[in-house]
């Protein structure tokens, strides 16, 4: 298969690679995106095309810019250079007011949940519905209850975010992200901080949304079990570039040392140097 490749050839890395293996048009496409914060270079020419209805997993070391990459997909951050397309239309140059409409088709799960402190759990999950639909209070309450049940938290509506645990917050945030039944869901570490059983429930939820509603997803994660389970495709980010891109089997079997080290969770001698006496 042509997508079974690791890009180790330097010429390969500088070329804006479009990772759509077949003729299916990409739903979302980043082309050669660069981003820096002050003197810190975070994204250095990332190109990534996402097919409709597929789940793409993004892995990579802490601090390589996975969250930054995810935020570029809905333009919470704008690229310094490069372009972002949605259904073939360029969107990175649109004003904030046009993006607002566009973003209603997306659900975004923040790494730190980002629940509104001043609202209850129920109001948090219902927020996008109150804002963007004309549904009645009762209808919204029904949907909120249903979404909370999907993440295993029914009955938590009256609590404040400050009163619930980190893992519960994450699941409330997930319920909020899918409240409007979006076409695309972007998950920033959906299973981090959850126990193994809960993690598996979330994995199943991601699969269910894909299966039943045809949701297109991007999942940023460090959890390889989850990555293998939900991913149709995995991309690995390192130093602001995509260094590997392929289906889960490829990551299970490759012998590229950079990938093996990350996937198997083995620190290299350089990683351990600081601990030596």
């Amino acid at each position, binding site marked *: 298969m042509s997508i079974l490749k690791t890009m180790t050839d330097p010429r390969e890395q500088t070329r804006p690679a479009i990772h759509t293996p077949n003729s299916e048009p990409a739903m979302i496409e980043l082309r050669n995106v660069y981003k820096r914060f002050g003197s810190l270079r975070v994204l250095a020419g990332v190109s990534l095309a996402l097919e409709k209805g597929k789940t793409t997993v993004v892995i990579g070391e802490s601090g390589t810019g996975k969250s930054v990459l995810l935020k570029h997909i809905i333009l919470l951050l704008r690229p310094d250079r490069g372009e972002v397309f949605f259904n073939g239309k360029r969107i990175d140059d649109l004003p904030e*007011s046009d993006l607002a409409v566009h*973003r209603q088709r997306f659900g975004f799960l923040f790494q730190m949940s980002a629940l509104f402190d001043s609202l209850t759990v129920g109001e948090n999950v219902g927020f996008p519905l109150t804002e963007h639909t004309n549904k009645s209070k009762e209808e919204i309450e029904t949907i909120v209850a249903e979404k909370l049940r999907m993440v295993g938290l029914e009955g938590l509506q009256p609590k404040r975010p400050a009163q619930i645990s980190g893992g519960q917050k994450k699941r409330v945030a997930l319920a909020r992200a899918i409240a409007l039944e979006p076409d695309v869901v972007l998950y920033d570490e959906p299973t981090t901080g959850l126990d193994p059983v809960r993690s598996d429930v979330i994995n199943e939820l991601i699969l269910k949304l894909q299966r039943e509603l045809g949701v297109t997803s991007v999942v940023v994660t460090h959890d390889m079990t989850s990555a293998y389970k939900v991913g149709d495709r995995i991309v690995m980010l390192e130093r602001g570039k995509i260094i590997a891109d392929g289906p889960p089997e490829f990551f299970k079997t490759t012998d590229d040392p950079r990938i093996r080290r990350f996937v198997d969770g083995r620190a290299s001698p350089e990683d351990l140097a600081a601990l030596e006496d």
Partner: protein
Amino acid sequence: MSSRVANFIASTGDHTLDALADFGRFFKFTGQTLRWLLHASGSARTWQLVLAESMDVGVRSLPVILITGSFVGMVLAVQAIEQFRAVGLEEQMGGVVNLSVVRELGPVLAGVMIAGRIGGSLTAELGTMNVTEQIDALRSMGTDPIRFLVVPRFLACFLLTPVLTLYCDVMGSLGGWLVTVVMSGVDSGPYWEYTRSAVSAFDVFSGVAKSFAFGGVLSLVSCYKGFHCRAGAEGVGRACTDAFVASFVAILVMDFFISVLLQSISTRIWGFRSLL
């Protein structure tokens, strides 16, 4: 040596550019707020949010406003009474105390107290929302954070600061009366008589007009600082201090210019009015 001078010049230049850029961003922020104000002020949802904020603004700042007002009036009277008595004009105290309170001290001190009480909590709240990505979360759900967070807070401060200022004026007036009439034994009748002849409706209007401007500017500055605060608890603390200092300075500077403007309007219409 010369490199040190060059460094100094360079860093001064950097700071100046930073300050100018900050100023530019603030004006853009203000522009966006005013644009959303036009868009959103017709919707019931905005006014629901304004109402919720107003409870907060009004209830939390009323006690401190009442205390400030009454003590300002009392202090003014204590400072002035001896001098006025020495020249036998103590009956005219009412005019001077009340005019100072209504025209200057009421609006300015109420503004400053609200900047501290409400502005500080606005910056802390929005700053925390910013560093915990709640503002990004709003954007990610297609809700404009300026419309949802800033417009209601701006309206609440803009509309309530004048009301609180009037409370401050009344308390200041009572404080002055307490010291002059009750404690220093000046006759109550002439005290109020002189007050009535010195304080015109225009004076009350000018104090209220100022307080609209103060309420508007302090909420914009506080919200802006919250939206642009640096990460971490330290960033939020810093933003609060910055917001208070900037609001305070802005209030004093605006006070000067509005006073000059209103004074010239008043002189053009009624000519010079002597207080004594």
